[in-house]
């Protein structure tokens, strides 16, 4: 006789353990620019029908209620909670935060386009606007040597005063992309997301139009992790883990007693 209660409680331990990993990752990224917290999603496993309600219990009688036993729980996925993080002013013109929906587009080393909301950009040795990992922002914008007073407008226009001139020159326009279902984007790490069949195709264009948020230069979007909320979730997870391990203990005790006494 296998003890199903043991297996059911084990499914609970597994799920809570994985939820703890999600919370740990959220907390670990509390200071990551524009990080979006994940939420663990749980599902009940199928019920087992031991006795069907309405089945005949004898020639004349029927069971009024059935015996459907649940078989546990499963963590089926994580959802990215895309709420806006707070804006922290930095004063650096190349720090950009998106106010509203949308993502910056960067060229990844494998040639694909990555999407990110982390706007902590800098200039490469050649004067290209790049991410912290050196991936160029798309469309590429080249800042000439000796340029001063770099500014980025809300619509993504990058301009600077080029050496030898007095009036600012437009260097290019940063475009952002939005998705029909941003929750469907796949996270790669390094603050990067890539499109999937679930996210839909990117709709790139000028920031501030068609649901794309506007750009705030000189500010960075903070992570949307709320430490207090995560700590509460952490305690809840820990308690749920504890009660499930108690259940394993209790079921084990039952089997132990049976083994000893029979």
């Amino acid at each position, binding site marked *: 006789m296998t003890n199903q209660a043991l297996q059911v409680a084990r499914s*609970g331990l597994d799920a809570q353990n994985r939820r703890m990993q999600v919370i740990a990752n959220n907390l670990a990224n509390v200071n990551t620019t524009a990080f979006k917290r994940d939420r663990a999603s749980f*599902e*009940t496993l199928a019920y087992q029908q031991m006795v069907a309600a309405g089945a005949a*219990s004898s020639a004349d009688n029927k069971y009024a*209620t059935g015996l459907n036993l649940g078989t546990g*729980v499963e963590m089926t996925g994580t959802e990215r909670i895309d709420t806006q993080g707070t804006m922290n002013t930095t004063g650096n013109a190349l720090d950009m935060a998106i106010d509203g929906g949308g993502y910056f587009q960067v060229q990844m080393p494998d040639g694909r386009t990555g999407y990110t909301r982390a706007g902590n950009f800098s200039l490469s040795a050649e004067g290209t606007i790049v991410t912290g990992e050196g991936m160029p922002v798309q469309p590429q914008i080249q800042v000439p040597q000796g340029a001063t007073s770099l500014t980025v407008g809300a619509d993504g226009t990058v301009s600077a005063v080029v050496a030898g001139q007095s009036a600012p020159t437009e260097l290019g326009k940063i475009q952002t992309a939005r998705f029909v*279902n941003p929750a469907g984007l796949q996270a790669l790490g390094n603050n990067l997301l890539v499109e999937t069949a679930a996210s839909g195709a990117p709709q790139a264009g000028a920031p501030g139009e068609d649901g794309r948020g506007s750009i705030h230069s000189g500010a960075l979007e903070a992570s949307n992790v709320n430490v207090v909320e995560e700590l509460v979730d952490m305690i809840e997870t820990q308690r749920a883990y504890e009660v499930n391990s108690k259940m394993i203990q209790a079921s084990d005790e039952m089997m132990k*007693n049976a083994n000893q006494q029979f």
Partner: protein
Amino acid sequence: MDRLIYTSLSAMRGAMARQQATANNLANASTPGFRADVAEAQARWLEGQSVQDRAMAAESVINADMKPGSVTSTGRDLDVALSGDSLLSVQSAEGEEAYTRRGDLQIAASGLLTTGDGRPVLGDGGPITIPAADKVSISQDGKVMIVPSGGDPSQPQEVDRLKLVSPTGSAIAKGLDGLFRVQGGGALPADPDARVASGQLEASNVSATQALVDMIDAGRAWDMQLKLVTSARDLDGASADLMRLPE
């Protein structure tokens, strides 16, 4: 041998089933909108020739505990907590209408609005499909509002209305997929007074303390029946000893 062991065995089987139901409740302590299962034993009398001296125990999951779970604010537009005892209509795997309290709604790749466990949510006109939109929100009376791509954010448009139902007066039971259905078939009528709170999510209604007490209870019941089985064995052994011929 005394037939007492069979009576005890039926009770032990019941205690183990009760333990599994409790384990399942505890395992689902974090599943949104989960409703705890209530297990109870029933006596099964066997008609004897003169006296009714055997009551076999039969365990059954009587119903789900429908008391509300705690609601927490999540700030996510597609999380909805249902007020009162109303239920959300979804489509089951077999295509028929079933009900749930689970309110962590998602938009699938196809644009279909589903619950967190992937059941298509039903509106007044069947499964709800969300067109490309800048913003999707759900109003208090369950209307699914969108701001179409590039549309005016101050002019949201209604796509459909969640089919919210009230189970008052109908017998509903949890099926093998964890969804509620009307017992004996049929559908619940839409409830125009049902309300939802967007940005909030109802947790599982499993009470850990209640479940722990149930767990200890089932464990003790098991041990007690075990004692009866061993007592029956001892009695049987004693009578066998009496029968033994002196050597």
